[in-house]
């Protein structure tokens, strides 16, 4: 971790930061309403603690130190596909109440997504990375590694095409990749991602991603933020090859 590093950030890490702030709202309101009502504060604190995931705290601690203005990015694919997916999930889970609209449902979701992201861009300084042909080339090469492992492996890697594209982009640009996706990291383990260890900060695992393309040797760091970091292992079943 250093001052001049660039990070490609998975959407879920960003949402973790917001999850922590959203979850503590009842406790914040209780404290504000009556700071001397210790019994009520204790009760709400226990409810809040039961809802908090340790990973959210680790994501917040990690990004607040590493993301300075202009060194953290999401990709265009994340912007246009992954973010709307999260908002559709909010919609269908009932967490996002919408009014009855005459127009397109997609426009409604897209409007909210754009509004949120534009705030994230201006408040966090998160940038949106346009991807190009060279990113695609690296992604194809990564998939080829799994073609040699058999059809089952190829299916698994293509079922995760969007995430694979993220790893490929990070490799191509030499950006550190920050994710909460153990399934992805373990899926690529042994072939592309190796050396999963814990960094000296709770809840964050560090691994290396490497890929050879012709005479180019691409490598980058992968930060996996996960509640099991410290004792996390990838099993043979979790690996795609």
């Amino acid at each position, binding site marked *: 971790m250093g*001052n001049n590093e660039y990070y490609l950030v998975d959407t879920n890490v960003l*949402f973790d*930061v*917001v*999850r*922590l*702030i*959203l*979850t*503590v*709202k009842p*406790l*914040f309101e209780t*404290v*504000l309403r009556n700071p001397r009502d210790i019994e009520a504060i204790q009760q709400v*604190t226990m409810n*809040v*603690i039961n*809802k*908090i*995931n*340790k990973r*959210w*705290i*680790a994501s*917040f*601690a990690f*990004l*607040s*130190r590493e*993301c*300075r*203005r202009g060194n953290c990015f999401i990709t265009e694919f994340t912007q246009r596909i992954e973010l709307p997916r*999260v908002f559709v*999930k*909010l919609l269908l*889970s009932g*967490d*996002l*109440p919408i009014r009855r609209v005459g127009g397109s449902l997609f426009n409604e979701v897209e409007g*909210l997504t754009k*509004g*949120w992201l534009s*705030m*994230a861009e201006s*408040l*966090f*300084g998160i940038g949106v990375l346009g991807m190009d042909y060279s990113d695609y080339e690296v992604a194809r090469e990564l998939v080829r590694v799994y073609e040699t492992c058999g059809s089952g492996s190829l299916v698994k890697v293509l079922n995760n095409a969007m995430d694979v594209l993220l790893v490929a982009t990070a490799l191509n640009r030499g950006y550190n990749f920050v994710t909460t996706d153990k399934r992805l990291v373990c899926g690529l383990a042994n072939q592309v991602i190796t050396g999963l260890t814990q960094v*000296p*900060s*709770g*809840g*964050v695992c560090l691994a290396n991603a490497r890929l050879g393309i012709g005479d180019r040797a691409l490598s980058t760091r992968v930060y996996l933020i996960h509640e099991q970091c410290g004792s996390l292992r990838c099993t043979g079943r979790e690996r795609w090859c």
Partner: protein
Amino acid sequence: MGCSLFYGMPQSVIEGLMEGVGEDEFRRLVLALYDVLTGTYEGLYDLIKGFDEDLTRGVSINVDEYYREVVDIIHNMHVDTYYIITKLNEALSQHPELLKALPRTAPTQSLDAVNKMFGAMAGVLFRLACGLEEPGRGALILLAESYLDLAVDKPLDAIVLTLASIALAHGRRDVAAELLKRVGVDLEDIINFACGAVELAKFLEEHGIRSIPE
């Protein structure tokens, strides 16, 4: 700092918990661990109190000296606890029956709850801080960040941030900035990030969203 649950317990409570645990060596090691952690706690308390008094009196602050002292306290605690815990593990591997005699509360679960509590407190302080003006805003955000560092097991950063928070509350931005430099933190960056997170959460709340499913 991972054993912070010990801090608040009097020695008699620790001794009570160890009653019925067979091996003398094991009991001795647990009490030694307690001594190390309470010693660390007292050392840090004295250091923070002394720092606050120096600022109140307006005497010149030697940031290097304070930083070195924090490093020493945390380093000694790590070395001592590492030694004792290694010995405890040896004792447990020779006498696994001791595990059965230990109190029922799973230590990892308790530690998880403490870490989550630090996280929750940090979240509340972020919300509170971002509604304030400077210097209260910065001081509270640094305090919240120090809770986050405790939750993710970064005790050195946590204590340095606490000192910086106190410095800022005393209007000594220069001392705070010097301290923060030691742990690679830029005050403006973390204020922007924390208040950015609060604003993003509020944006969702304004649209009726109170949580985000995993």
